[in-house]
């Protein structure tokens, strides 16, 4: 088992910078998510940890030992690819035992080991089948089996569920997380799916354009986003932004916009300029008493809840409200925010302004 520390890791491909000076720490036994849109550098980061790509500069410590330039085979890690990368000419058993056989482990021992892994993954009955005819889920299990069987220091996974269809993905995600909980091995997992990251991760690093935007626990990242990118990337629907030009003093608890003013968590520093007020859809309530009003543009039914889109004079707001609340198109409604959850942003740089709500998170982020 292993602790992984990334320090100022940087990777350039010619003139293109894929990863720009990232630093973060993955604790022993953690399920760690690298999250971001495609092209954000998350896969490159993972490939550098694996030893499939050479860092331009910076260090990678696995269990305290710097190994940024060691070949992949000497790092004692297991990599699970998005496309499974099973050997098509071998059956399930040979696929799983391959890493052991190539290490020169005695046959009897391999047999026991494979049997044990197959039991953990629930694939004992397909061990002697060719991999060609397997379903997506079974292929993924075999790929996992091949990773687990070596007892590596850590698992690196590159969108391992990306090729499965949506319905099955959720099921596999649960299975994978349960497996991790049983084995307790450090896992680094790359995904572009924010729900997957929130659902499975102990910690999340959010990357964009090669830069680490925020690093922390899922709930912290969700409630206290450090940047507008994070706020907009995480959550479905994402955080609402009302953009305006304004000013706040240090210690203020209210913010004035053109047409309304809102209570906000006490600010820690003064700011003047282009700002954005961020509020999550579930912290918006429809309220007839409110003076902040708008017109209903759309309502999307989601079973337990519905998403109501409201056009206000200060911008569009999506609210998540219980689905038993009747909402008609074009109806005028009042909106109220849960003030303790509001984040203010510097709209120019995208950075969150420090407040009572997020100062603990931003201090070490």
């Amino acid at each position: 088992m292993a602790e992984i520390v990334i320090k100022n890791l940087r990777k350039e491909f010619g003139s293109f910078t894929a990863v720009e000076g990232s630093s973060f720490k993955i604790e022993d036994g953690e399920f760690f998510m690298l999250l971001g849109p495609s092209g954000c550098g998350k896969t490159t980061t993972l490939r550098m940890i694996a030893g499939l790509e050479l860092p331009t500069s910076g260090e990678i410590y696995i269990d305290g030992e710097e190994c940024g330039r060691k070949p992949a085979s000497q790092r004692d890690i297991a990599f699970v690819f998005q496309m499974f990368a099973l050997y098509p000419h071998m059956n399930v058993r040979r696929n799983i035992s391959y890493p052991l056989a190539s290490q020169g482990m005695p046959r009897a021992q391999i047999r026991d080991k494979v049997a044990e892994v197959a039991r953990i993954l629930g694939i004992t009955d397909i061990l002697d089948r060719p991999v060609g005819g397997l379903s997506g889920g079974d292929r993924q299990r075999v790929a996992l089996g091949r990773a687990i069987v070596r007892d590596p220091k850590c698992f690196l996974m590159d969108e391992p569920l990306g090729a499965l269809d949506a319905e099955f993905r959720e099921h596999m995600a649960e299975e994978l997380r349960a497996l991790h909980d049983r084995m307790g091995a450090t896992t680094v997992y790359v995904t572009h799916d924010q729900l997957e990251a929130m659902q499975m991760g102990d910690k999340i690093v959010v990357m964009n354009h090669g830069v680490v935007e925020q690093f922390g626990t899922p709930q912290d990242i969700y409630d206290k986003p450090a940047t507008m990118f994070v706020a907009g990337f995480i959550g479905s629907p994402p955080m609402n932004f009302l953009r305006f030009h304004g000013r706040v003093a240090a210690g203020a608890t209210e913010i004035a916009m053109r047409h309304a003013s809102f209570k906000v968590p006490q600010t820690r520093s003064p700011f003047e300029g282009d700002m954005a007020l961020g509020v999550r859809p579930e912290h918006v309530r429809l309220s007839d008493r409110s003076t902040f009003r708008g017109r209903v543009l759309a309502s999307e039914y989601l079973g337990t809840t519905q998403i109501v889109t409201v056009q206000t004079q200060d911008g569009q707001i999506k609210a998540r409200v219980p689905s038993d609340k009747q909402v008609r198109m074009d109806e005028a409604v009042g909106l109220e925010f849960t003030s303790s959850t509001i984040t203010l942003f510097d709209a120019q740089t995208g950075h969150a302004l420090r407040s009572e709500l997020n100062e603990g998170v931003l201090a070490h982020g």
Partner: protein
Amino acid sequence: MSSYSITEPSVRLKWIACVLVVLYALITLVPLLWIIATGFKSSSDAIAYPPKVVFEPTLEGYVNLFTLQNRAGAEQLAANPPTTWYEQIVHDKGMVISGPSRFGERFMNSVIIGFGSTFLSVFLGTLAAYAFSRYRIPLKDDLMFFILSTRMMPPIAVAIPIFLMFRAAGLSDTHAGMILLYTAVNLSLAVWLLKGFIDEIPREYEEAALIDGYTRFQAFVKVVLPQAATGIASTAIFCLIFAWNEYAFAVLLTSGTAQTAPPFIPTIIGVGGRDWPAVAAGATLFLVPVMVFTILLRKHLLRGITFGAVRK
């Protein structure tokens, strides 16, 4: 510090690769360069031993290639003073030009037969490949295998029956006969190659066109053909190269009107034996059309070959 990467080759490996490529290029290009050089040598330089690498270039070989010449006496030479540069070259050898050679004719025969059979092979091949790729044809796999099986023995193995058939049908030494023959040989290759390419074009494109109001044939012309351009181009090159270089059938089935360049070039006889500079000049000129054609379609060809190679 030991450095390691699976995506960037080391400097030493790059050097080794470089040396190997240069070596390979030399081995393949030297004969070609030798032929081109020989075309510009004089008859005596061409057969000199040890071979001459440095020599005085002359167009004698090219002039000999395109003309027929007679030995002339001194007074005849004096009576016909040379008026052009090529007459001068001939004059200096003590000869006079008696007329044009047959090389031009034979070269045109090669062009007509080569490009004619290439066009026909690709045209028929595309239609057949489309049908094999898209329609549910009974015994499709067996038919495809049968088509391939026509290439399993060397075509020349059936030379005698073909010779007899051509004679009976009056196709001997005709352009049409040679075009038909080369098309028949190339067609199986064309169908196989093109079917691979057309298989790769998703059906959804045509289905979208059908729903958009086009007929099946219009969808084929407007949607499939443009996307198969790469495959069509590389197939055309393969077909042309075969038809252009074919020697055995050309020797067997043509002698006069439809004779192509390959059997003609080696028969060029000069004074006192084979005229090597003229043969080399003929070979050099003979390379030009295929080279131009290949260079024009080069972009397609490279893509086509790799595309075909990684196809499952």
